[in-house]
């Protein structure tokens, strides 16, 4: 169950271009969060909270890691926060990725969609699932968490401009890895569209983003249609993770 919690910032690190890793201390969220859930983070001077995925959890140390990209004024301001300061957070929000006992899974992350997959991969790896990861970034400067994913298993890095790893899009390297039971993906909508089309024959789960008001399911800001008959889901409450067939991108 989501709660309104105070989280103390333990560390703030820049891990790639405009990409910040923040480790936050909180007992309740660290013990209850599952991969794919997000935090709804209050930022001083901003009307709306900012949804940020949980990228890692350390139950022993009662810490939660988030990674965010500086996009606009909210994330810019958040990036100026320093260790010791307190974040006001709603969390853990939404429904995470379903955890199954597959032999092999494929993780496909694009840019700042990569973070929730790390928490997922780590959790699945601990349960003995073999992890294959394809991570796409714009350019070499933006790559992060490569080694962490390599520690979980086979990892392909793709950059759009070819400055690091394979050149192109994550879909370009999909063919290198056909041997998996299920895929999990998070990233920009065009990437998700390409992936769900390319992997139609596979079971998959995708994590979606949308601009949010309440972040708890009350305001109808973040709906996604599930069919052409007016069916819909709320990304903040019913998602952000959906089965690839469940929603209309």
């Amino acid at each position, binding site marked *: *169950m*989501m709660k*309104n919690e105070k989280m103390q910032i333990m560390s703030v690190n820049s891990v790639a271009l405009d990409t910040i890793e923040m480790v936050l201390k909180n007992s309740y969220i660290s013990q209850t969060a599952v991969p794919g859930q997000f935090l709804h983070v*209050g930022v001083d001077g*901003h*009307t*709306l*909270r900012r949804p940020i995925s949980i990228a890692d959890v350390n139950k022993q140390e009662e810490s939660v890691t988030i990674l965010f990209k500086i996009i606009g004024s*909210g994330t810019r301001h958040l990036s100026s926060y320093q260790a010791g300061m307190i974040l006001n957070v*709603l969390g853990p929000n939404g429904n995470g990725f379903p955890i199954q006992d597959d032999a092999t899974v494929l993780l496909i992350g694009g840019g700042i969609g990569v973070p929730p997959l790390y928490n997922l991969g780590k959790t699945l790896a601990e349960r003995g699932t073999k992890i294959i990861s394809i991570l796409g970034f714009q350019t070499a400067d933006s790559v992060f968490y490569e080694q962490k994913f390599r520690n979980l298993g086979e990892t392909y890095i793709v950059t759009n401009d070819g400055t690091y790893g394979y050149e192109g899009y994550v879909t370009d390297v999909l063919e290198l890895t056909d041997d998996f039971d299920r895929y999990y993906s998070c990233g920009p909508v065009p990437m998700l569209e390409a992936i769900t089309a390319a992997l139609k024959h596979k079971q998959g789960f995708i994590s979606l983003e*949308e*601009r*949010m*008001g*309440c*972040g*708890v*399911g*009350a*305001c*109808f*800001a*973040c*709906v*996604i*249609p599930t069919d052409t008959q*007016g069916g*819909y889901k709320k990304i903040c*409450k019913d998602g952000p993770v959906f089965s690839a067939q469940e929603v209309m991108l």
Partner: protein
Amino acid sequence: MTNLAVNLPGLQLKNPVMPASGCFGFGREYSEFYDLGKLGAVIMKAATGSERFGNHVPRVAETSSGMLNAIGLQNPGVEKIIETEVPFLADYDTKLIANVAGSTIEEYELVAKTFNQTNQVHALELNISCPNVKEGGSQFGTDPFMAAKVTERVKQANNLPVYVKLSPNVSDIITMAKAVEAAGADGLSMINTLAGMQIHLPSKRPLLANKTGGLSGPAVKPIAIRMIYEVKQHVSIPIIGMGGISNAEDVLEFLLAGANAVAVGTANFQNPFICPEIIDELPGVLNKYGFGSVQDAVGKGIVE
């Protein structure tokens, strides 16, 4: 003991604070944070005759001290709301206000009638001011003749007290208020959102799929206060005030301007506990400024 109780047509409120329509859904989500029985009343999300999907996303944008929304009255339709949402809310020790919307007078009538039959709703808030739908809403809200007509017809169609929710997007709010009062409104609810827009620089187009949206939050508070202050001097029906409230001092400012009770919208998104926190702080704020009750403060800021 500071008396927070407020007596309005159909609404014996234990305190004057309620979540604003559309910012609280049907209460379920916030009921996980606190007991909804603490609230003076709950105003439900707008209901229309049948299910509405609303506008495309993005539906919200952030602005300086405010936000834009263009939800577009998404809701499951009045029947479904009565079936699945009203019973849940009726279990709480609070009053229930249904926000009534529609594209035609007939739809408003139908929704009002249907709520009337439940015996679980204590009052209606007639939403003639939603800026985010093509038909209904705003056109009723900016024309005093149309506003009066829909008010009159809804009053005839049901027995519940009707609070007409006014649009601030008008040249002359007093004329609107007087028109609906004359048409039989039991109270006013003001203000709804101001029509606004944000252009997204990277995509070079309006950020909201609906292009325009309704501006709410602290940014609009001075406009709400001004309109309530002006209207109060020209009507004798009570006013539920809203627009940018985010603390107990704001509530007192609305009371002084002439509101009899208040609703809190956007602030719920930043702080899900905002309503109960305001209720807890209100007695202290009233006392600090010399008031022994909510009733004492109403309209006390008005000078000739």
